[in-house]
């Protein structure tokens, strides 16, 4: 086989740091992939891929065939979800979901009818003649997402028309301990993988298919060689030394091509598209055979599993069903980890289903993977810095994260951390470094989101303020124009009346005259006095007059010399009394007239 015209071995570079944990691959990679019997109920979470959750296209009670669309992708980065078997839609409701948060997520429950009846399939043996767009669309319709772990919708990688791609890099490293799903897939279906790779190479217009594989998988390498010969597909093989985390996308690129993906960049910036072996096999099945992504290979392993191995599992199979089939002794098991021991997480609820990105379920005993012990203070040994495959300063980032100094964490390139866990693995103080980084990353993301929404609120507030000001100005302008119009109308009216109504004017003048006359009549006598006051004045002058008259009669008898003077005075008083009495009477009469007039007016 060596020296074949189809296979070319390429030299590999190296990555900084990395660790060599115990492999534990042999437990699960020695038996062939077995197909799980059909489960009775499947739960398909709508948010199982990266990006926007899909939207249901079925109703409860609908009968669907295997491979029929049940939830459609929404937006650019999203993926379709298909019925993994034929049956009836039993429920669409929140259900347990394999995520650290333990949140329930909307999911579709499909009751299997046991027939496993396919929908009408339309295989394309001549996909080359269908055109690139049609093939990419078929991948999208098939709901294909990356099967390596992140669950990124595959078609998006082929829609980037700006970048010129020279290499399709097949990620076959599978560096995390315990996981052997890709290893078994390569041994058994290397031809499917290469067929898928041919499709992707054609889509990208890439010159080479480069396989990056760790040297602990000789059987898989042999399978690739045989498949390449058989299919007559030229491939390049980059056999890298076994080291964790050489299977990280950016690490593998650095290993096999010696170039680093720029900060914040994508592999396509280097002319590379990296694809997991499982994804490529699925691309083949989707494009050529018209089978959407409805099942995957999942490793079930760990010391608590009596039959560790790889299983072809329908997406949506409850984890506990898979574990029961693999013979997990739950009494021995400490916890169930989805993913590997380095980057996996503890499944909070075993009712949660297997999703498109579930590559491994690890069920260790307490002795095998002891639960985390409390950490000791950092002793600044620097081992983490030597282990970091991205050449970061884990210690510095730890201080920043611990004290929530997010700016300083960013300054130390926290966002370039791939969360591989190598630093925490080597830490002699057992500090959960990655958990600190993920906390800090989450805080940064949250803060950014808050800033964005605050900015939006600020703009909305300012716009509203401007609008209110404008409305105020408009209102004022309107009011003024209305006032001007009213004044004009009044003036016009007065002018019109002046011309037409001389009779009315005469009437008004007569009325005014009458009122004035009445006023004069009322005001005779002491000016400005009221009726009662007038009466009092009249009374007082009458008394004075009576007194003076009395004195006059007295003087006529006692003092005749005084009579003349007294007569004069009494005459004056009599005059005063008569005038005041007259004034009172007039006023009284005026009041009576007024009283009589009131009801009329």
């Amino acid at each position, binding site marked *: 086989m060596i020296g074949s015209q189809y296979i070319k071995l390429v030299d590999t570079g190296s990555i900084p740091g990395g660790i060599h944990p115990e492999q534990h691959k042999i437990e699960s990679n020695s038996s062939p992939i077995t197909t799980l019997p059909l489960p009775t109920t499947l739960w398909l979470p709508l*948010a199982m891929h990266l990006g926007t959750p899909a939207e249901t296209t079925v109703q409860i009670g609908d009968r669907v065939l295997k491979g029929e669309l049940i939830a459609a992708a929404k937006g650019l980065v999203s993926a379709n979800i298909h019925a993994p078997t034929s049956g009836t839609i039993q429920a669409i409701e929140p259900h347990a*979901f394999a*995520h*650290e*948060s333990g*949140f329930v*997520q909307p999911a579709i429950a499909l009751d299997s009818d046991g027939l496993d009846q396919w929908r009408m399939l339309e295989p394309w043996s001549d996909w080359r003649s269908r055109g690139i767009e049609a093939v990419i669309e078929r991948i999208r319709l098939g709901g294909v997402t990356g099967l390596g772990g992140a669950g990124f919708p595959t078609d998006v990688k082929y829609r980037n028309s700006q970048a010129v791609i020279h290499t399709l890099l097949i990620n076959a490293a599978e560096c995390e301990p315990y996981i052997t799903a890709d290893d078994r897939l390569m041994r058994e279906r290397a031809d499917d993988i290469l067929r898928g790779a041919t499709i992707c190479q054609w889509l990208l217009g890439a010159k080479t298919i480069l396989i990056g594989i760790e040297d602990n998988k000789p059987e898989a390498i042999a399978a690739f060689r045989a498949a390449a010969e058989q299919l007559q597909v030229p491939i390049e093989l980059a056999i890298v030394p076994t080291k964790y985390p050489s299977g990280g996308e950016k690490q593998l690129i650095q290993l096999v091509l010696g170039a680093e993906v720029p900060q914040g960049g994508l592999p396509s910036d280097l002319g590379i598209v990296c694809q997991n072996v499982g994804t490529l096999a699925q691309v083949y099945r989707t494009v050529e055979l018209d089978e959407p992504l409805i099942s995957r290979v999942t490793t079930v392993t760990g010391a608590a599993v009596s039959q560790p191995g790889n299983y072809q599992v329908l997406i949506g199979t409850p984890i506990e069903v898979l574990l029961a089939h693999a013979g997990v002794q739950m009494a021995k098991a400490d916890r169930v980890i989805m993913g590997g021991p380095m980057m996996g997480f503890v499944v909070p609820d075993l009712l949660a289903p297997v999703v498109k990105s579930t590559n491994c379920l690890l069920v260790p005993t307490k002795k095998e993977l002891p639960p985390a*012990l*409390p*950490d*000791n*203070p950092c002793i600044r040994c620097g081992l983490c810095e030597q282990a970091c495959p991205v050449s970061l300063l884990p210690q510095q980032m730890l201080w920043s*994260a*611990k004290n*929530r100094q997010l700016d300083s964490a960013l300054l130390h390139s926290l966002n370039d951390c791939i969360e591989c866990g190598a630093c925490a693995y080597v830490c002699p*103080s*057992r500090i*959960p470094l990655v*958990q*600190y980084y*993920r*906390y800090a*990353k*989450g*805080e940064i*993301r*949250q803060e950014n*989101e*808050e800033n964005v*929404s*605050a*900015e*939006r*609120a*600020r703009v*909305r*507030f*300012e*716009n*509203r*303020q401007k609008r209110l000001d404008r409305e105020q100005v408009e209102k004022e302008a309107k009011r003024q124009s209305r006032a001007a119009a009213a004044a004009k109308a009044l003036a016009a009216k007065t002018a019109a009346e002046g011309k037409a109504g001389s009779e009315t004017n005469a009437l008004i003048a007569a009325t005014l005259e009458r009122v004035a006359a009445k006023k004069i009549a009322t005001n005779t006598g002491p000016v400005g006095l009221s009726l009662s006051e007038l009466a009092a004045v009249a009374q007082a002058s009458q008394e004075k007059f009576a007194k003076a008259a009395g004195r006059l009669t007295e003087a006529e008898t006692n003092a005749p010399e005084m009579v003349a003077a007294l007569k004069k005075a009494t005459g004056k008083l009599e005059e005063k009394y008569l005038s005041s009495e007259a004034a009172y009477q007039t006023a009284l009469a005026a009041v009576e007239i007024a009283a009589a007039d009131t009801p009329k007016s």
Partner: protein
Amino acid sequence: MISAVLTLLLLAAIFGGLLGFAAIRFKPEGNPIVDDIDNLLPQTQCGQCGHPGCRPYATAIAAGEAINKCPPGGEATISALADLLDVEALPLDAEHGVEAIRTVAVIREAECIGCTKCIQACPVDAILGAAKLMHTVIAAECTGCDLCVEPCPVDCIDMVPVATTLRAWHVDKPGALIATDKPPAPNASHKSAA
């Protein structure tokens, strides 16, 4: 001697002229410190500080008002403002309210009578509706300021806590417990460094 003095005078005149020109020509619009302060405030526009919005409060802070009157911003905003203005970070003034979890207004739509009072009260135009027609809150734009609750004549607006979604969730900071804080285990089978 004279020439040196003249030279210095000339230089002083030139630079003075330059500075004077720059001061007029490149005068910044508005008060830049107000913008800086405004950027740190949470933009809830709730008015709990006693000002009709975040920007008015930013203007007031620039004029010397206390920095601890913003309950939605809480300690984080106060310390950021203290950093910016180089003043002491005070504890939150309880007079203006306490730091609470983020909420969003929800109108019980069956009870809404369509009076538009809440629409007029909303500082960020996050309520949609028209007279005698049902109103609804645009949850993504709601700042949780509470200002729409009081004007509602039928009390049909609830402030509900914002639920954490799967995408917004992130791991908590690992516990502060370290090995030396832990009481000795009764059956310590492993040889602990402590």
